[in-house]
């Protein structure tokens, strides 16, 4: 993992978080999207996980050489904000779907 800069890993985390949030909503709103993912691996959730892995490492490889700032706390804080907002987006979406 040391070949990747922290900036690359942070952007990779952002990409995965927002991919998961958006594909989750897309699969619920458009049945063909769910069917397409299920067709890839047998189950839509398995496909989401595998695609997340691919996205994470693809973004990390592409941005691997990006230079890190001296203070990386801002990058990590950004990822945590993304994670919280992504989780809230998914939770609120299902809450609205249910109500």
């Amino acid at each position, binding site marked *: 993992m040391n070949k990747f800069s922290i900036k690359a890993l942070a952007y990779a985390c952002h990409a995965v978080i927002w991919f998961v949030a958006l594909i989750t909503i897309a699969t619920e709103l458009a049945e063909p999207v769910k069917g397409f993912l299920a067709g890839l691996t047998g189950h839509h959730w398995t496909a989401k996980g595998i695609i997340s892995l691919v996205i994470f490492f693809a973004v990390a490889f592409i941005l691997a050489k990006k230079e890190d700032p001296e203070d990386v706390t801002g990058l990590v804080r950004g990822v945590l904000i993304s994670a919280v907002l992504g*989780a809230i987006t998914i939770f609120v979406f*299902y809450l609205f779907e249910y109500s």
Partner: protein
Amino acid sequence: MMFSLIGFHASLGEFAALMFFWAFIELYSGADSNIRRAKLAVLLGVVFLFAAWFVGGFYYVEFYGSGVKPLIKEGPFPWAHKVVMETKEHVFLFLPFLGLLAYSLVQRLGSQVANDGRTRVAAMYAAGSVVVIAAGMAFFGFLVSSGFRAALEQIAL
């Protein structure tokens, strides 16, 4: 088989949270020996997270969808699946990647960025976030199990 798998998944997730909490404490102390132990803790934490993902995923795909989900949806707490489980199964996917970020930050300590206090703080943020989200997953798991138990009680009583 079904209940052993869910117990195994939950245990792996709890061990992962424990390892990241251990790393958080070691990082807070910050001496060289603490950093060495933090590196071991995050490595174990990442392994446990991926194992929890694999075991939980196998249970979810093979057993939950066909045996548990329909009962919860017909039971007194359908939200346990429709809101809680749906959120849990997707937010869980954030965890292995946050774990990898924490692992990468901790590995840099003491070598590439010796005594870099800010990187140590960033690693604490990442490790702490894994602990908090994993605790949330455990609570959501409890709610899903409660929904299943309530559905079974409705059938039995």
